[in-house]
């Protein structure tokens, strides 16, 4: 009796462990509040938002397209291959099955990288590369499902058909095909499931503007959490739940398969897989558990997908397919362009935008240099543009084709002189400062007037530092009395030392997440950019922003046209659009950094204009320093030191 009680308790505990996170997502999907983990009232808005959100829906559509195309193609190739392999002699069969095992056994990250290396060498990354990668890891599942069926299929019946005058094809379709069909079908379903859930391999092989649900979620998770995603997850979960229960109840009425069969397999109503023999035995049987495991998941995936097709139809009728075929590929920081404004550009000009995002300038540089995607226009930070101009990667702009450039403040254009002295390469987009966002309830305003507060131990465990490598070193360099452009190795090592001392006190290194963490009051101090601070202050009145008196980094993000640009005219139209007053205003409202458009500052109320986080004063700008380009060697040093810091 006691034993039974203990068992029950154990089951209940594990059950809670498994379902608590899901319950949280479900509850939050109905919560009115956006950033806080506090209940502020019931709403269904996020569900409406979720289906209206073009990013989510297009990621959903891409996921389905890739999944289906990959599953169909891999089923065809895999089934043919299985037929071929079954006719082979032992030796070549072993070789084939060995090769089949590679994508199955290997770590996802290695498979993804190896494919990326291949694709980058011979072609550009895009939809097709993801598709090829998915087909590659899907084929083994098809083969391993079909092969045992072929083994089981009686050769004598087939030969009898031939003896009775049937052609080989006719005999195959009349005799063998019906026998292997269940295997083909479950192979297909497995392929669907594997594709639907894949993250790592897609992540490394996807091109600009291509996002599946998994990769989109990964990017969103780093940026901050949006309640639409809770809604999406709730919808997906309950769809699957209902389907699974339906299937389960249904299959219980049919005679139970052989005892000891995997439960998952039974529930899916799949026929009992035959026990293979011969050399293929080990490979096939070994894939069985995994197969059983995914089989049920696959069935509902298919039904889920067919349900989704309906919503897709709605989606496609809602977004007019843009004709004319002009496309530009834009690379920009994450959350750095108003989505509606981007949509309006497409509608106004008929130019389709492939929009791709990145987190920090070093990542941008890697993406660009990798050459896997031909970008037409890129927005990034001053020091990275300086480096690219030095490397001869930047094309001159034709400002006569960008009439709205005149709307920008000449003083701001002057600030770009450090990297574009003749003002012929760049269009400034936003500027701002690096500073300290702090919670006035927890932090003494006197403390944050100096960077020292990051080292005085008072806010241990409650500090968020930035993980953008150069900005991470900037406070340390300033505190030590060095320039933020110092590249002296000893000085950097000194900076590393004090950053290491600080490391145990730091609760996390974030970039885009800092804002949400500060709003949720998960930390007292967050080193972040002025725009994030401004937005956070608007959400939580306990927050304030300080630019320490020792000075800080003043950054300017600008647009430039790289050598890979294929459609200059369209880029000029895009830049002209970006500089237009209403678009600048929309983007300002969205990102909350300081806009070089004069009209934006003119339209602010007095309080906003005084806010240093939104609009740094001239005095502040004088105190700050602009980053200069680093040599490859210095950049590499920064990288190594950074890794040393976080592996501390």
């Amino acid at each position: 009796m006691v034993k039974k009680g203990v068992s029950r308790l154990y089951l209940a505990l594990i059950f809670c462990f498994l379902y608590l996170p899901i319950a949280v997502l479900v509850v939050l999907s109905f919560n009115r509040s956006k950033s806080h983990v506090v209940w502020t009232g019931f709403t269904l808005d996020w569900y409406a938002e979720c289906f209206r959100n073009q990013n989510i829906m297009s990621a959903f559509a891409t996921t389905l397209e890739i999944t289906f195309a990959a599953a169909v193609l891999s089923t065809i190739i895999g089934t043919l291959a299985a037929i071929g392999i079954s006719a082979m002699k032992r030796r070549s069969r072993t070789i084939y099955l060995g090769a089949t095992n590679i994508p199955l056994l290997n770590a996802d990250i290695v498979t993804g990288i190896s494919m990326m290396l291949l694709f980058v060498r011979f072609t550009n990354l895009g939809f097709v590369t993801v598709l090829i990668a998915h087909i590659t890891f899907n084929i083994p599942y098809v083969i391993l499902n079909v092969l045992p069926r072929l083994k089981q299929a009686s050769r004598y019946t087939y030969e009898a058909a031939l003896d009775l005058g049937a052609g080989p094809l006719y005999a195959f379709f009349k005799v063998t095909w019906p026998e292997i069909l269940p295997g083909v079908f479950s192979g297909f379903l497995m392929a669907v499931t594997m594709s639907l859930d894949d993250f790592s391999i897609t992540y490394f092989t996807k091109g600009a503007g291509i996002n599946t649900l998994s990769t989109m979620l990964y990017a969103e998770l780093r940026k901050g959490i949006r309640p639409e995603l809770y809604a999406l997850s709730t919808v997906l979960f309950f769809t699957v739940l209902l389907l699974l229960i339906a299937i389960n109840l249904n299959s219980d009425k049919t005679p139970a398969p052989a005892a000891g069969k995997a439960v998952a397999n039974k529930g899916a109503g799949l026929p009992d897989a035959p026990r293979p023999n011969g050399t293929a035995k080990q490979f096939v049987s070994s894939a069985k558990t995994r197969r059983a495991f995914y089989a049920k998941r696959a069935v509902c995936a298919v039904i889920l997908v067919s349900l989704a097709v309906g919503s897709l139809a709605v989606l496609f009728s809602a977004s007019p397919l843009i004709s004319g075929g002009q496309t530009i590929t834009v690379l920009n920081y994450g959350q750095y362009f108003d989505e509606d404004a981007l949509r309006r550009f497409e509608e106004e000009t008929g130019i389709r935008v492939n929009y791709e995002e990145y987190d920090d300038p070093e990542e941008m540089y890697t993406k660009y240099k990798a050459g896997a995607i031909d970008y037409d226009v890129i927005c990034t930070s001053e020091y990275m543009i300086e480096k690219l101009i030095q490397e001869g990667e930047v094309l001159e702009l034709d400002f006569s084709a960008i009439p709205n450039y005149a709307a920008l403040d000449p003083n701001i254009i002057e600030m770009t002189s450090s990297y574009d002295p003749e003002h012929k390469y760049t269009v400034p987009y936003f500027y701002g400062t690096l500073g300290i966002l702090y919670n006035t309830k927890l932090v003494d305003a006197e403390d944050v007037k100096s960077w020292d507060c990051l080292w005085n131990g008072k806010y241990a465990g409650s500090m968020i530092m930035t993980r953008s490598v150069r900005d991470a070193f900037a406070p340390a360099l300033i505190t030590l009395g060095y320039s933020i452009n110092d590249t002296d190795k000893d000085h950097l090592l000194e900076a590393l030392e004090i950053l290491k001392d600080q490391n145990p006190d730091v609760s996390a290194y974030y970039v885009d997440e800092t804002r949400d963490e500060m709003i949720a009051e998960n930390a007292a101090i967050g080193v972040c950019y002025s725009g994030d601070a401004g937005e956070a202050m608007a959400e939580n009145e306990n927050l304030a922003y300080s630019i320490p008196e020792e000075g800080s980094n003043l950054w300017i993000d600008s647009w430039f046209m790289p050598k890979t640009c294929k459609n200059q005219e369209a880029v000029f139209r895009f830049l002209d659009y970006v500089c237009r007053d209403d678009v600048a205003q929309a983007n300002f409202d969205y990102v909350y950094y300081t806009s070089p458009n004069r009209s934006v500052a003119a339209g602010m109320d007095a309080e906003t204009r005084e806010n240093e986080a939104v609009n740094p004063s001239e005095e502040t700008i004088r105190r700050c320093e602009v980053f200069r380009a680093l040599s490859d060697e210095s950049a590499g040093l920064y990288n190594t030191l950074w890794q040393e810091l976080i592996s501390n």
Partner: protein
Amino acid sequence: MNKLKKQLLAGPYLVWIIGFILLPFLMIVYYAFTNADGGFTMEYLAAVLDANNRKALFLSLELGVICTVLCLLISYPLAMILNGMNIKNQSLVVFLFMLPMWMNFMLRILAWKLLLSKNGVINSFLSLFGFPGVYILNTPAAVVFGMVYDFLPFMLLPVYNSMTRIRKDWLEAAQDLGAGHLAIFFKIILPLTVSGIISGVVMVFVPSLTSFAISEVLGGGKVLLIGNIIEQDFMQGMQWNAGSGLSLVLMVFVIISMALMNLFDKEGEGTAIW
């Protein structure tokens, strides 16, 4: 003749194997053994001994082992209880324990981030009753938490499957012959589930060793695993040769665990995963 024709059907797949399995693998090998100028070098393989990489590799191994052990410790009793349950709808109960797996992998991690954050759900709940809070987000513990949550079913299923194959009469026979509970467990149940355990171990260990997304999200940039270094080498540092070198090293560990599994699974028992 007919056989030969049939074999030709594997042709497209042969092309695929060469183009998209062997060639990519050779690319990694090529990058791992050459420097940026294309000259031969061993430096990137040797780089695994650098302080940063070594630390990350050890941390990955450590977290991978902890995660695997935890999964086993949780799954084994669970599988026993589930298997011993004498109710009509056993499959439905087992299914309930598998259900969270059907959620998108990323969403499950996201949920833990929400739960574990400083002012998150768990801490709000604890403080309601005056208990001290749990502050493990952005530490290796949180990463292990996420891994265990994500990979638990990979362990539970093979162990449970191997357990369902143990026939009740064997246990009864042992009992009749005077074996105690402990003897039955160690002499019958455990040996008969070894192959399930081994496949579960490999199935959990390989992804937890090579994961980079979980540590990225739950580690707050403070937990650097070997997967994260490889990811950064490729996506940020533009150091493809270094990343390839580390990938090759990682494959060695994967192969070792596979070999280990094959050793215990000679007869292709059917509970193996791969």
